[in-house]
C-alpha cells in the first residue's frame, strides 16, 4: 500500500541495521579468538569484515535518520529511536576499535589467559546478541522488552566479574615482571568488557523507551 511505502522502507532499514550489529558481534568474537589462537590471516580477515560492517551500520543509521525526519514519521518517538540506534551503533564502533587495537598494539597475551579472555569475549558478545531481540521487540511489542533485556544485564554482570578476575590474575598471580605488560593486558581486558557496558547502556535506554511506549 502506498501509505505504508515509507514505513516499510524504514522497517526494512532498521532490520538491516540490527542484523549488521548482530553479525558484528559474531565477527568480533571470532576475531579475538583467532588472535588469541594465533591465526593471523583469519584475524585480519575478521578485522576487514568488521570494518565493512561498521561502515554499513553507519550508512543504514543515516538513511533511517533521513527517512524518519524527512517523512515526519513518528514525531513523538523518533528522537528516542534515533538515540537507541546511536547507542547500538556505538557498540559496533567500539568492537571495531578494539579489534584494531589488537592489530596495532599486538599485545603479548600469556597462554594462561587465553581461555579467560575467550570467555569474556563470549559474555560481552552474548550481551550484545541479547540486546538485538529486545530492540526488535520494542518496535513490535514493547511489553515484551523487559523480559528480554534482563539477559543483557545478566551477561553484563558476568562479564564484569570475569574481567575483575582476569585483572586480578594479571597483577597478582601470573609471573609477568614488567608493569607495562600488566597495564597492556588490563587495557585489553577493559576493551572487551566495554562492549558489554555499551550493551547495558543501550538496554537502559530501551527499557525507558518501552515504558514510554507501553499503553
Amino acid at each position, binding site marked *: 500500500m502506498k501509505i505504508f511505502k515509507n514505513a516499510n522502507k524504514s522497517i526494512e532499514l532498521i532490520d538491516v541495521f540490527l542484523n549488521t550489529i548482530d553479525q558484528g558481534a559474531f565477527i568480533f568474537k571470532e576475531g579475538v579468538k583467532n588472535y588469541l589462537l594465533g591465526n593471523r590471516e583469519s584475524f585480519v580477515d575478521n578485522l576487514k569484515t568488521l570494518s565493512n560492517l561498521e561502515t554499513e551500520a553507519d550508512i543504514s543509521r543515516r538513511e533511517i535518520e533521513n527517512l524518519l525526519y524527512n517523512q515526519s514519521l513518528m514525531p513523538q518517538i523518533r528522537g528516542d529511536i534515533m538515540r537507541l540506534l546511536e547507542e547500538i551503533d556505538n557498540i559496533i564502533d567500539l568492537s571495531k576499535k578494539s579489534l584494531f587495537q589488537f592489530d596495532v598494539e599486538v599485545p603479548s597475551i600469556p597462554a594462561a589467559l587465553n581461555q579467560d579472555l575467550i570467555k569474556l569475549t563470549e559474555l560481552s558478545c552474548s550481551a550484545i546478541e541479547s540486546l538485538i531481540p529486545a530492540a526488535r521487540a*520494542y518496535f513490535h511489542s514493547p511489553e515484551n522488552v523487559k523480559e528480554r533485556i534482563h539477559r543483557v544485564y545478566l551477561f553484563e554482570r558476568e562479564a564484569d566479574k570475569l574481567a575483575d578476575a582476569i585483572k586480578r590474575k594479571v597483577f597478582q598471580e601470573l609471573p609477568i615482571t614488567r608493569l607495562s605488560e600488566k597495564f597492556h593486558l588490563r587495557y585489553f581486558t577493559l576493551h572487551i568488557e566495554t562492549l558489554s557496558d555499551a550493551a547495558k547502556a543501550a538496554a537502559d535506554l530501551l527499557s525507558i523507551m518501552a515504558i514510554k511506549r507501553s499503553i
Partner: protein
Amino acid sequence: MLFLVFLSSGLFLGWSLGANDASNIFGSAVGSKMVSFRKAAWIASIFVVIGAVFQGHGAANTLTDLGSVDALAGAFTVSLCAAIAVFLMTRSGLPVSTSQAVVGAIIGWSAFTGHQTNLSVLWRIMGTWIASPILGMIFSALLFLLVRYILRKSKIHVIKLDSLLRFGLIAVAAFGAYSLGANNIANVMGVFVPSAPNIVLNFGLFSINGVQVLFFLGGIAISIGIFTYSRRVMETLGKGILDLTPEAAFVVILAQALVLFLFSSSSFSAFLDSIGLPPFPLVPVSSTQIVVGAVMGIGIIKGGLEIKFKLLRGIGIGWLTTPLAAGFLTYLALFFVQNVFGLEVSSTIDLVEELANPSKEGIVSHLDLTVPAIMLIIFVLLVLLVYLVLRQQKLRLKAENQVLHQQNQSYTSSKALNELEIRAIQMQNTMLTNKLELKRQELNTILMNISEQRTFLENIAIELCRLIGIPDIQKRDAKLNELTLLLRQRMSFTKEIDDFYERIDKTHKNFQLVLVEKFPDLTDNEKRLAMLLRLNFASKEIATLMNITPKSVEIARYRLRKKLQLKERENLTEFLKSL
C-alpha cells in the same frame, strides 16, 4: 441587516467556541506534528459546518424547549451575556462551559420576561452535564482496552502503527468535528432559532431551511475561530491532551466524538426509541468536560492516575457558578436593553408554533437556488482546477529551478576547477619555457665550446704538420715547447670551469655578498675557495677545479682560516656553511 447585527453576539460565541474547543479535537494530532495545522483547520471547519447544518437541530430544539427566546433583542442579549460570562470566567481561571452559560442565560431571560422555565427539560439538561464526562470516561476506558488488546494481539510495527494512527486521528477528528458542530451549534445559535427567517433554500440535491442557514452562519463563525485563534490555544492550553501517546489521543478523541454524537443525533435517538430503549436527550454538552472524563478513563485503566479531586471539584463548581453568573448577568442586561434602549426582549406571538406550522401563516418563502448552486459548484470546481494547475506549475517550476540551481552550482565549481587547472598548466608551461631557454643556452655554450676546441685543435694539428718538415732540431724543440705550453694553458683556463664558477656565483649570490661584506680583504681566489669549501668539495676536487696541487689547496685553506680569524677548534667548512 438588523438581524445580522443582533446575530453578532451569537457569531462571537461561535468564534470563541471554535477558538477554544477545536483544540480538544485536533490538539494532539497537531501538537504531535502528525497533522499540519492548516490541514486540521480545514478538516475541522468543513465537518463542523456539515454537522451544524445537518444535525444541529436536535440539541437546539431542547434549548428552545427550555425557554423560547422569541425576540431578536432578547436572543442577542442572552447570547452576549453567555459570551461575556464565559469570557470573564475564563479570564479568572475558573472552569467554564459555553453550554452551561447559555442555559443559565436562557433561565435568566425566562425569569426576566416571566416565562415559565420547563423544569423537566432543565433537569434533563443538568443530568447530561453530569452524564457526559462519565460517559466519556466509560467510553474511553472501553475503547482503550479494545485498542490495547488489538495492538498487543496484532504486534504491529511501531512505524506502521504511526502511519495508521495518522489516518485514524484525522478520521476520528473529522468525526469529532462533525459531532461538535452538531452538538454545540445549539449553544451558538440555539437562542436565535425562534427568530430565524422563514425561508427554504433549494439547492437541487438538498434544501435547507432558515434555521439551517442560521446554523451554517454559526458553523462559519466556529471555523473562523478555528483558523484565527485555535492554534494558540492548542499550543498553550492543549498540553493536557498533547502529553498523551498517539494511541491514547486517538481513544480520547473518539470517545469525545461518540459522546457528542449521542447527545446530538436525532436519528440515533429515534433508533433507540424504536427498539424500546429510552432515547438519548439531545442536549448541548461541554466537549472539554468530556475530554477530562476520557483522559481519566484511560488513567484508571492504566492504573497510574490519581483521581484529581481538585479538577472534579472545579467542574462541579462550574456546573453551579456558570449558569448562575450567566443568568444573573442576563437578567441585568435585559433590564437595561428593555428600559434604557427600549427594545423588545420578548414577543407575545408564539414563534415556535409559527415555525412548526409555517403553512398556516403562508409566509415561508421558497427560493430555488438549484441553478446558482450548480453555478457555484462549477465555479468552485473551476477555481480548484485553476489552483491545482497553478500549484502543479509552481511545483514544476520550483523543481526545475532546483535542478537549474544545482546545474549552475556544478557548472560554477567545474569552471573554478578548470581555471585552476589552466593556471597550473600555464605555470608548468612557463617553467618548461624557462627550462628550455636554459637548455638552449647550455647547448649554445657547448656548441661554441666545441667549435672553439675544434679550431684550437686544428691549429695545433697544422702547427704539428709544419714541425714535421723542420730539419732544425732546436727550432723544432722550441716550437714543441711553445705548443705544450699552449696546451697546458688551455687545460687550466677551460671554458667549462669558467661556466661552472659562473653558475655557482649565480646560485649562491647571497653567500658571496655576505662574505664580501664581512671580510672585504679576501682575494678572488680565496672567495672561490670559500665557495667550494661551502659546497663540501674535497681538497682533491678543489685542486682540479682551481688548477693547483692538493698541497697548495691545504696552504690556501690555512691562509683563508687566518683571514677569517678562526680559532683552532673551529671547523672552516662549518663556519662557511653557517654564514
